[in-house]
């Protein structure tokens, strides 16, 4: 059976990773992977995916960030219950951290297959750039801020940042995780406590964020991978970005530790949030397709596929029980943190997409409005947290 799979993985590293999934599916089952890639981020892809589902002509499987995005589709009975697959394959035991699976679970039923873990608390540093500036490669955020003037001096943009809204927000989230005590972080990002968001702990985060925006002046690129490319070529000193950035480094043939470094938690707190990608399977009334869907679901979490996929994608596997020794330096760091339990839930799970969009907007406004003060942005932020549901 042909199974159409939609996703928005179209950058170099991503496409290579998808190819692993497709090859495995074509090789290990009697079915065929029909690729439905749509470029241009989830904003473009999502209406298409949802239209297809509510229009009664769903694809076989689709990527969605798991978390609250799919809640309503599940409630409307549009997504396939794959609890039987999960049980048969013992997902409850192997998925690590376990909250990944709970994000797929509604009322005790499993509706999605998580495929990877993405964490966003990373800063990527170009060795080349720091060499030009004549400073050592920083070991944490503060050192990096201190090296800023030297980098400027050397004609290097200290911090690369793409213009898309979610990237600014991502940087903010990374700073928050790195700089906040865990309790404060949880108070805001899990319990939505606006008073903490308005408090002094958060003031420090916004101040750091203010530093970041000053360091990023002169970074005129749009896409995240363009920003990553600036780090790869040494045009920029660093980029705060998710772990998928290392896919780009890999495609460019760079070696972690030699050409570039990565600091999880910005070098302060070795914790990662555990968002990630998952595949959902829309309900069809075609039994063949349903069988194929379930086979795909099972395959996605199989150890071989997990290894192959995540190596290409630069993300962490969702199973703790597989051998990732082939992974590079940075990925190893991530696995260590995971294994040591330094795990936070991801924003995708805590906030609705609506709230995230609002925060995205706020951060972007702040980032691009030099007149906006730290106090102002913090106040607006607290307001959004207060109204989040």
């Amino acid at each position, binding site marked *: 059976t042909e199974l159409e799979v939609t996703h928005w993985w179209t950058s170099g590293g991503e496409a290579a990773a998808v190819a692993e999934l497709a090859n495995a599916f074509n090789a290990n089952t009697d079915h065929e992977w029909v*690729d439905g890639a749509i*470029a241009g981020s989830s904003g473009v892809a999502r209406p298409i995916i949802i239209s297809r589902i509510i229009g009664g002509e769903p694809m076989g499987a689709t990527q969605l960030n798991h978390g609250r995005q799919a809640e309503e589709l599940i409630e409307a009975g549009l997504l396939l219950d794959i609890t039987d697959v999960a049980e048969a394959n013992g997902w409850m035991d192997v998925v690590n951290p376990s909250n990944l699976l709970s994000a797929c679970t509604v009322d005790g039923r499993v509706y999605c297959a998580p495929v990877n873990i993405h964490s966003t608390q990373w800063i990527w540093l170009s060795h080349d750039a720091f060499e030009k500036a004549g400073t050592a490669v920083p070991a944490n955020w503060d050192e990096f801020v201190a090296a800023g003037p030297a980098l400027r001096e050397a004609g290097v943009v200290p911090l690369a940042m793409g213009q898309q809204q979610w990237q600014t927000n991502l940087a903010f989230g990374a700073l928050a995780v790195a700089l906040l005590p865990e309790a404060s972080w949880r108070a805001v990002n899990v319990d939505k406590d606006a008073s903490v968001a308005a408090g002094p702990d958060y003031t420090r985060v916004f101040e750091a964020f203010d530093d970041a925006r000053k360091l990023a002046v002169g970074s005129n690129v749009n896409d995240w991978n363009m920003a990553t490319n600036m780090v790869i070529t040494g045009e920029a000193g660093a980029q705060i970005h998710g772990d998928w950035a290392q896919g780009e480094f890999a495609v460019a043939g760079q070696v972690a530790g030699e050409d570039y470094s990565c600091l999880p938690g910005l070098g302060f707190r070795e914790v990662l949030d555990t968002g990630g990608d998952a595949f959902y399977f829309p309900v069809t009334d075609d039994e063949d397709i349903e069988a194929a869907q379930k086979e795909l679901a099972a395959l996605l979490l199989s150890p071989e596929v997990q290894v192959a996929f995540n190596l290409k994608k630069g993300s962490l596997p969702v199973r703790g029980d597989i051998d990732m020794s082939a992974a590079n330096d940075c990925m190893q760091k991530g696995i260590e943190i995971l294994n040591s339990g330094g795990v936070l839930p991801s924003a995708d799970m805590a906030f609705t997409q609506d709230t995230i969009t609002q925060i995205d907007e706020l951060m972007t406004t702040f980032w691009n409005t030099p007149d906006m003060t730290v106090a102002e942005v913090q106040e607006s932020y607290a307001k959004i947290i207060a109204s989040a549901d």
Partner: protein
Amino acid sequence: MADPVQFTGPHGPKPKTPFSRRNIMLYGTLIVVSLYYLVPLYVMIVTSLKGMPEIRMGNIFAPPMEITFEPWVKAWSQACTGLNCDGLSRGFWNSVQITIPSVLASIIIASVNGYALANWRFKGANVFFGILIFGAFIPYQVMIYPIVIMLREMGLYTKLGGLVIVHSIFGMPILTLLFRNYFASLPEELFKAARVDGARFWGIYFRIMLPMSMPIFVVAVILQVTGIWNDFLFGVIYAKPDSYPMTVQLNNIVNSVQGVKEYNVNMAATLLTGAVPLFIYFVSGKLFVRGVAAGAVKG
């Protein structure tokens, strides 16, 4: 000729220089403005013929030092989207298959509407027309879900027929306006004569009105080919991956950055995608102006 006459003082045509101030101003302005219009095309073409190293050197206006058709080949048949590495070629036939019936259907419907509005003036016609014009202003995005639901109910969702309907619906306001104005400008007596001759609604439409409407049909064809060929939103939402139009591929090529942006491939892809409407423009420019004159001027 008769014997030459001797004139004193000015006679014959007033002497002119080809470089009168007026001509310099006139042609100067036209040429400068033309540059503004041509520069992007020039940049697209030049860039699409350069290799990536040359592009990185930075001058987008410099002509290629070494002409390469590699980007064109890549854009047409090799560029990747996700796993599919067959470039635009995949979408080309889809686009053709979508465009032809959509253009035909939307024009037929709109011309019949325009004809009914201009010549038959049934009750409430103006109200419908007013709503149609209002419809021209509705942002497409708003209509996505209602139309998905409608097409689902009709069983046409993700079918070519559904896409044709969608294009017809969204082409209707402006086309109807043009056709209505055009038909209203034809002599009403022709219509009366045909009625006396016993022709009815369709008879008059096909036998009398259609043969006289070449110019406005040219305009409609151009507008619709351009619009439908270039459409991305409806193509991606109301079709399936195996029937996605070329613009979806274009969007994928342009937006899926693999490493560095391959500007030359992007430009080649852009030119390839625009080729069909551009071709139609170049061959029918004159008719277009004439048709626009017929459809737009008469209020």
